[in-house]
């Protein structure tokens, strides 16, 4: 039937606005001044709410840190187990000063970055394959569902035996977590591309490759980028678990090591480093997303 329904309905919304008398000087300067004042008041209100939110956030953080510190020093909680902020800060200061922290950070960041970038790329490539060959996608559908619901971390020991105690095993654990879910998500987006846009390309004599290049891929671009963001989180889980298992280097190894020697200050300080690095990475990808997905897209 009307398979072009999904397209932009050609309603004449903005035409009326553009053809109508657009104010002009005879509208009176006081009207313009009035609008400006209303806008300024709106902006002031926005800013003051923003400032209030930020100060409450900082206050909460400070209160948490202070309470933790007090609880640790006054032995309300076991400091051996839960440590406290100044002890963690001292640990971080010494390990970053003597340089023992940085190799671990470097290894983990490299593994994670490789994990989410490769996971997204491979997942997108597999999704393209499924889109290109509908028969293949029908055949693999149940396998994908089963594999996706499997706790992939359980495959870790197999990867380590097969690929050795190192980067490759950790990457494999990470990819096993990211690739399938990426494939499923992006394939669904490929398949749901607006029928009207597809019809236009077909009517203009486009080939399947042109259809993919001109419509399917660009229409899915925002979804691919947001999948990249989701994969940052998954990759961190995969890498930390992988490092637990391999136990040679990296932030996951530091946690396991701290746990084995009963140094919980090391465990918690490593967690702080992970939180900081993961946030930075996530923000970086979010920034990339903003840059790539702007342009002429409609705000939809």
């Amino acid at each position: 039937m009307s398979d072009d329904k999904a397209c932009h309905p050609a309603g004449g919304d903005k035409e009326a606005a553009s053809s109508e008398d657009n104010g002009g000087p005879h509208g009176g300067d006081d009207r313009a001044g009035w609008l400006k004042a209303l806008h300024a008041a709106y902006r002031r209100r926005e800013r003051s709410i923003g400032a209030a939110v930020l100060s409450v956030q900082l206050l909460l953080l400070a209160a948490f840190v202070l309470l933790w510190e007090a609880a640790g020093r006054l032995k309300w909680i076991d400091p051996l187990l839960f440590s406290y902020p100044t002890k963690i800060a001292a640990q971080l200061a010494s390990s970053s000063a003597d340089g023992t922290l940085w190799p671990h950070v470097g290894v983990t960041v490299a593994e994670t970055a490789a994990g989410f970038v490769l996971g997204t790329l491979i997942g997108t490539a597999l999704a393209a394959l499924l889109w290109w060959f509908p028969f293949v996608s029908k055949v693999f559908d149940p396998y994908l569902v089963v594999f996706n619901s499997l706790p992939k971390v359980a495959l870790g020991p197999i990867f380590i035996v097969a690929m050795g105690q190192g980067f490759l095993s950790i990457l494999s654990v990470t990819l096993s977590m990211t690739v399938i879910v990426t494939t499923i998500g992006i394939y669904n987006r490929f398949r749901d591309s607006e029928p009207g846009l597809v019809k236009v390309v077909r009517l203009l004599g486009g080939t399947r490759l042109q259809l993919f290049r001109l419509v399917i891929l660009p229409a899915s671009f925002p979804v691919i980028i947001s999948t990249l963001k989701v994969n940052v989180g998954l990759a961190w889980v995969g890498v930390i678990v992988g490092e637990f298992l391999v136990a040679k280097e990296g932030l996951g190894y530091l946690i396991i090591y701290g746990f084995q020697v009963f140094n919980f200050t090391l465990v918690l300080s490593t967690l702080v480093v992970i939180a900081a690095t993961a946030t930075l990475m996530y923000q970086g990808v979010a920034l990339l997303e903003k840059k790539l997905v702007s342009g002429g897209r409609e705000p939809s």
Partner: protein
Amino acid sequence: MDDKSPMLELRGVSHVYVGRKGASLAVDRMELAVGHGEFISLVGPSGCGKTTVLSLLAGLFPPAAGQVLLGGKPVTGPSAKVGYMLQQDCLLPWRTIRDNAGLGLDIAGRRAAAERNRVEMLLEEVGLAGTEGKYPGELSGGMRQRVALTRTLAPEPDVLLLDEPFSALDMHIKMQLEDLVQATLRKLGKTAVLVTHDLAEAAAMSDRVVVLGRNPGRIRKEIAVPEAIRRLAPTEARKHPSFQALFDALWVELNAGEREGGSHE
């Protein structure tokens, strides 16, 4: 192309949609011929197979039976000779107006400077000068539909298939576009098939109106538009003294068709 044969021809064409739930006859043994430079309209109740007929003419899929001919030769698939305009503009939101208008040329690999210039000139002709670098989201519905018209005209098709291209627009923009489309097609000497459910639009724009009956789609009646009305631009045609009579004749046919078809549903 053979000039004696009609530009477009349907010979005993039937079309069946086959799906999981069964097979349904959408178009039944249709005979239709459209001459070079002729502008015809297809009107009929919703679901009577108008879009199916256009899709067959465009070569989107082959008919279940019968022959579809373009310039005397069987249609085997979409071709640059046939342009198609949909109810929705279906512009690619991530492409500029210029790139959207030139989509067909890109697909055909026609990237010469002369082709680019022609797109710019077409955009100017439909009143879109100065919007070339903008994106579809920045344009009104009427302007976007003009871009869609340009995109359809840019590969220089001989035939235009128009599937309710004005039905989603406000009244005055719709009438502006009707005039624009008719004038443009007439100037370029294109053959056109317009699908519409607006009888006044059909009467005002075309040389001949084909009324379809419903379920399955077949031709009920063909009504030629009098020369006096045909000459005029659509907005003027609507004011012509004999326009009402033409409209009434179409109205009677359409109603009769709907009653007959409705009985066996």
